[in-house]
Structure formats: C-alpha cells, structure tokens
C-alpha cells in the first residue's frame, strides 16, 4: 500500500463509557435490573431489596445453574451445545451420594455397602461428569453428529441411568464429610462454601480462556473450525476436552447441590441445562461461536438469579418468572446481534 500513516495503534486505547457499555451490555442490563428492583421494593414499602443476605441467598441458589453456565460457555464458544447437563447433574449426584451414605442406606444400592470419605465421593462425582463429557465430546468430534443430537441422546440416557440406579428413590442421609462442600458457612454465615467454589471456578474458567493455548483454541474452533484445523489446532482433541470440562462442571454442581440440600436425587437438575444455556446466552456468548467472556456469563447468571428472587420478593406469581425470563433471553440476544451488525458494517 502506498501510505501507511494510519496503520497501527498497538497497546491499550482509552475507551469511553459508551464503548464500554456497548461491549458489556449485559452488565448495563444487570445494573438497570437492580436499580428497578430497589425502586420497586421501596415503592411497595417492603424492606430494601439490596441487602447482603438477599444477595448472598441469590448467589447460593444460583450456584448450580451457574456452574453449568461456566461449563456450557466453553461448549457454546466452540459453536456446540450441551443438553445433557441436567441429566449429568442427577447421575453424578446419585452416584457420588451413594458412596457417601451411612452403611445402612448405601447397602440399599450397593450390596456390599461401600462407604468412602466425602472427598473421594466428590472426586467420584466429578469423574462421572467428566466421563459423560468425554462421551459427548467423542461423539461430537469423531462421529461428526451435531452436538444437539449427541447430547440429546446422553441427556435421555443419563437421566435413565440415574433413575435405574436409585430405582427412583432419593439418596438421602448423606454423610457430613460429603455435604460440607456445599453447606459450610464461613465468617459467621456471611460466606458460603459453594459460593466460594463458584468464584474459584469462574477464575479458573477465565484463566483457561484467556491465558492458555487451550482457551485460544476454543475461540478459534468456534470462529472457524476448518481455519483452526489448517492453522494446526487439533480440533478433535480440543472438542473432547471442551465437553469434558462441561461435564466436570455438572459433576461439581451435583455434589455442591446435593450437599446443600442434604440429599441426592434422580430428578435433581431437571431443566438446569436450559438455565445454564440461558445464562450464557444472556451473557453475550453467541451461538454462532467464537465470542464470549466469563464476565458476561457471570452477569447472565446474576440477571436470571436476581430476576427470580426479586419477583418472588415482590410477590409476583412464579408463573410470570418464566415469561419474563423468556423475554429477557430474546431481548438480550437481539441487542447483542445489533451490536455485531454495527461492527461489521
């Protein structure tokens, strides 16, 4: 080219607030939502909405779907989808729970009545999730079937295994060394163990996506799988790892939730995959692949959580929740698409 006067600006540029808001529209929505809820509760004359207890409760109740969102976000960035998450939660919870019961209970499931330490049961839960993830990933990577179909299959089979394994009964009376992961309070009840674990996972997810080769590969595969392959990315191996991460997150969600509620249940996690996918989607993680940030995903989780509890707080019928959730999902994606169109013009 003749002139290269306006060629390169390296390093960081200062961004205006407008640019930040357009890049992080979900955080704007979140803040707006909080402000609206605060005003609404004040008008209604109830107690102030934005209290520590409230926020902490929201966090706690959203840890399960939140972990699924952290998992499925990798999958969606790679232009895939995982419908099996809710089933994996139930399967991992009943299997790990069965190892963490008093002998009398576990004998119902294991004739020998094997009981292990809670930590080993946790590892078993993660392993169950990871294995289903590996199956999902292998199906997607090597048989080339669409991830929607592959995970639809494991979704159905996973739930079936959980019901078969427990004969439809809940696995209760879990040992304390197992429930501690999901039900320990620190700082006099101010900090909850599962919230702490969620924050840790969010940091790990951020680290993987931004600081490792694996993370860069995920974006490249989602952005253009064939181009990634030509550039030396081992697409199949990466896909397997992506689904394995997602499955492992389901396993973790299973253990924490079983711990928090005190029992594992073959119906646990029903429809959670949809909540996880919804949170990631609201958080700006595009089904077209190749884009998405952990911060956005967290905003998505919080938007759904705050919406849910705020509506309850305001005494709105729970039937409305689903309607409002549906509207928010669609609006968030419409806004996001408009932003993308603006960039490409």
């Amino acid at each position: 080219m003749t002139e290269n006067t306006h060629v390169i600006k390296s390093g960081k540029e200062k961004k205006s607030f407008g640019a930040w808001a357009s890049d992080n529209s979900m955080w704007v929505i979140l803040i707006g939502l909080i402000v609206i809820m605060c005003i609404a509760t004040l008008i209604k004359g109830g107690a102030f909405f934005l209290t520590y207890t409230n926020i902490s409760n929201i966090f706690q109740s959203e840890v399960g779907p939140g972990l699924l969102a952290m998992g499925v976000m990798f999958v969606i960035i790679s232009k895939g989808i995982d419908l099996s998450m809710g089933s994996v939660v139930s399967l991992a919870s009943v299997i790990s729970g069965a190892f963490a019961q008093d002998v009398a209970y576990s004998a119902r499931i294991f004739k020998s009545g094997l009981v292990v330490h809670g930590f080993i049961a946790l590892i078993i839960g993660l392993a169950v999730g990871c294995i289903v993830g590996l199956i999902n990933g292998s199906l997607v990577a090597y048989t080339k079937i669409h991830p929607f179909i592959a995970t639809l299959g494991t979704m159905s089979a996973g739930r079936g295994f959980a019901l078969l394994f427990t004969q439809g009964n809940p696995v209760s009376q879990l040992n304390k060394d197992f429930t501690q992961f999901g039900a320990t309070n620190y700082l006099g009840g101010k900090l909850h163990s599962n919230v702490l674990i969620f924050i840790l996972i969010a940091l790990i997810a951020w680290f993987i996506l931004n600081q490792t080769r694996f993370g860069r590969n995920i974006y490249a595969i989602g952005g253009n799988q064939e181009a990634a392959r030509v550039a030396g990315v081992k697409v199949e191996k990466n896909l397997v790892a992506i689904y394995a991460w997602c499955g492992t997150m389901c396993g973790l969600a299973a253990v924490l939730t079983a711990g928090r509620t005190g029992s594992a249940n073959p119906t646990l996690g029903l429809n959670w995959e949809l909540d996880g996918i919804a949170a990631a989607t609201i958080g700006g993680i595009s089904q077209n692949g190749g884009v998405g940030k952990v911060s956005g995903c967290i905003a998505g989780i919080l938007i759904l959580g705050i919406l849910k509890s705020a509506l309850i707080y305001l005494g709105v019928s729970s039937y409305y929740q689903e309607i409002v959730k549906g509207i928010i999902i669609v609006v968030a994606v419409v806004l996001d698409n408009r932003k993308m169109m603006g960039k490409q013009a």
Partner: protein
Amino acid sequence: MGEYVLEMLNVSKAFPGVQALDGVTLRVRPGSVHALMGENGAGKSTLMKCLIGINSMDEGTIILRGEEVNFPDTITALNSGVSMIHQELNPIPLRSISDNLWVGREPRKGKFVLDKKKMYEDSKALLAQVGMDDDPEVLVGTLTVAKQQMIEIAKAVSYDADVIIMDEPTSSLTDSETDKLFEIIRRLRDEGKAIIYISHKMDEIFEICDEATVFRDGKYVGTDFIKNLTTESLIKMMVGRELDAMFPKIDCEIGEPILKVENLSSPGWFADVSFELHRGEILGFAGLVGAGRTEVMETIFGMREKSGGSIYKDGEELDITCPSDAIDNKIGMLTEDRRKTGIVPVSSVLDNISIANIKSYVGPAHVLNHKKMSEEAAEYGSKLSIKTPTWKTPIASLSGGNQQKVLVARWLLTDPDVLIVDEPTRGIDVGAKSEIHSIITNLAAEGKGIIMISSEMPEVMGMADRIIVMHEGRMTGIVDRKDFTQEHIMELAALPTEKVR
C-alpha cells in the same frame, strides 16, 4: 432515456470510522461494458451495494432510465431491472440447480403448487444460454465452484435486467469458461444491456470493456474510454503512482532439495505425483481448475488422507496425518479459500496472526506469554504493513488484501522451511498483490522452498523457477524458467499428451 441508462451522482457513504464513498459519480451507457476499477477498499463494492439497496447512501442521486430511484432492497432493484452477481457465491448447496435458479420466484400452477415441468425446462434453456448442459436436478453442492459461478450468471441473466453488475465474475473460472462468459457478456451488450464489470485482471478489462471509471480511497478519479487507456495509465489512476515491477523476481541460489514427493496418490483426485523442491526455489503449479493441484497440496499438508506415496523432508520420510503435524515439520500452507479455511472472522487480527505459532508461546504451567505473542504478531503485522484500526479489531472488518496479508503474517511467524501458497493473490487489489509477490520472492531468497499454485498465468510465469503442469490429476510436464511460454504451459494444462517425464 438520454445518453446514459444509469447515473449515480455525488454519492457519499460513511461507515463508522471510514468514509467509504466521498461524492463519487458513475455514468453507464446502454449497450456497453463499463469497468469499475480501483484497489480493494476504493469503494466499488460499496457503490454497487448502494445501487441495489443493500446499503443506503448518505448523499447522492441515482437516476435509472431518466427517473430518480433509491431502492430500499435488492428485490425492488431486481424488479426494476438491476441485478448483481456477487463475488462471494451464496448457493444453496443441498438444493438442485433449478431450485437455486428460481428460488423466491418459482413458476407455479395457480397460487401454491409448483410447476415443476416448467421449472425444469426453463432451467434447461437458461443453462444452455450460458453453455452448460448439466441436468437441472443435480445438487448445486456437487458442482465445481466454476459451475456454481456460471449458475449465478445464468440467474442474473434470467432477470432480464437492463443493468447487470458483475463483481469479479472470473475469479474462479478457467480460461475457456472465461471465454464463454465473455461471449455471454458481448451478447448481452449487443442486446442493449449495460454491464458494470468489476475486476482486477487488466487483460480482461482491455478485452471486454468499452469504458472505465476509476475510484481511489472512496473518491472519483476519472472515466475514459478503454481505447484511450493503457495498462500503465490505468494502474497509475488506481494507485496514484507507478507500480514497481509486478513480479519482482530475485535471482537466488537454488540450494539442495528440501522436500521430496514420490508417487503421491489419492484415488479420484490425483495419481503418481512426484517432484522435488529445492531451497530458494519457487515451484509453480499450473493447470486448469480441477486439475488436482490444490488436492495434492492439501494432502502434503495433512488436510487430506493420502492413499499412496511418500513425502520426504531433508531426506527423512514424514508421516503427516493432520495440519499440525505439517506445521511441526516446518511446513506452512496459505490455503485457497480465505474465508473457509483461512480467517477466524470474529477473532482479532492479533489472534489470527498468532494462532498457527501459538505453541511457541506456551510457558510454564501452560500459561501463554501474551506479551511476547502480541509483540511478535504486531512485529510481523507491521512488517507486512497491514492496515487495521487496531490489532484487536476483528479480522472480518478488514479488506480482502489486508486479510490475506494477516494470513501471510501467520505463516511467516511459524518460520516455515517450506511454504505452500495456493492462489495467494486471488481477489485482492493490485497494490497488495505486488506486496505479496515481493514477500514470496524474499522468502525464497532467504533459502526457503516455496510451492505456488496460481491460475493466473502471468503470475506463475513471473514468479516461478520451474512450473509443474497438471491435468486431471496427473502431472503432464515440468517446465524450466527458460522454456516458459504461455502457449507451451497451456498446451500441457489442456491436453493430456504423453507424460513428458
């Protein structure tokens, strides 16, 4: 109607951060072929998109057959007699040719029921018009790119438009198909239609066009009859300066063999391909579209499975099963289809440069050394003078030439011993083209081995030390630089004579 069928006056269009068009003017006569020229980013495509209603203009007037118009969408434009053949094909691969031809305006019996018979027969007639005898029931996805292109052309013709815009229509056509296209263009012209012809290929402009309008950086430079112009004067108008020699061949020492291919085969695609590549050599591959050149290279690079034969590098046999194996063995490949196998559109320029070399930046505990990665990527980006607002800009918003330079930078960063370039300058402007040519020549001068596939005869003849010619999956000859003539190479490419070696 007056002298012109179409006048676009003082058209301006701004995109965020770019003034794409700045008061440009285009006047097209009926019954003539009008070349619209300029480097990539000059605003040709934007002007055409304003005309057919894909973009809306900020200012300006469009006068079609004496009446002012401003089309809100392409359908209105089509119905008013303006059709466009886009550079990027958008076929529906899993539908038949006739479905593709008539999509959105299928002939019907009554209101709902398709008239399949009429559709079939009309398709047959239309295909015959563009010199194709394929069955209209064949799925478009099974056709070659060239045939898909001809179908686009047939579709545009079928609208019976007064103004037909052709954006790089020959970029995937062979010479004989191009001749066929030119026949169609001449016939349309003689019927009184106006054709706006966008192309980077000078010889085509001089062969088919009557008049040319040149833009540069979104501004109008001038309009003149082709008979008053020369290649040099046109290029000067386009780039605003004399262009350095288009093919800056540096004579350099041809060293020892670096890559050796023996009896490489892949049933249905190619057979018995054997050659040696030396250090410092540019080995050209010529042939018609479909001769199997790309498939040979994809096999060497691990994108396809090989069924027979062996590949040696520096005397050692390689076992390459995927591109990452090839990259580990210091082989790079700039692929033919930039969109499909090149760019990761939503990712930044920086990520697009560093992706193939990312393993070099993995530090302890798998943490990427971001600083080193951005610095080196930016260094190569600057070296190739890539024009981008920032390094973080998504590559999709760059012009084709700049995208291609990003991909070249990607491979340079891996420091390959062997670089395969497949149609390295397809669809990019003259300036970027000459830059890419000199990058390739310099790489050879540094002692790397280069394999270059090109369908542009002047390019491959200007750059290569030797040319291997292929026809229908077989090598038909190896020509040394001193024996290069277009006739000789074309003969080998077109006629399956006895194997020369």
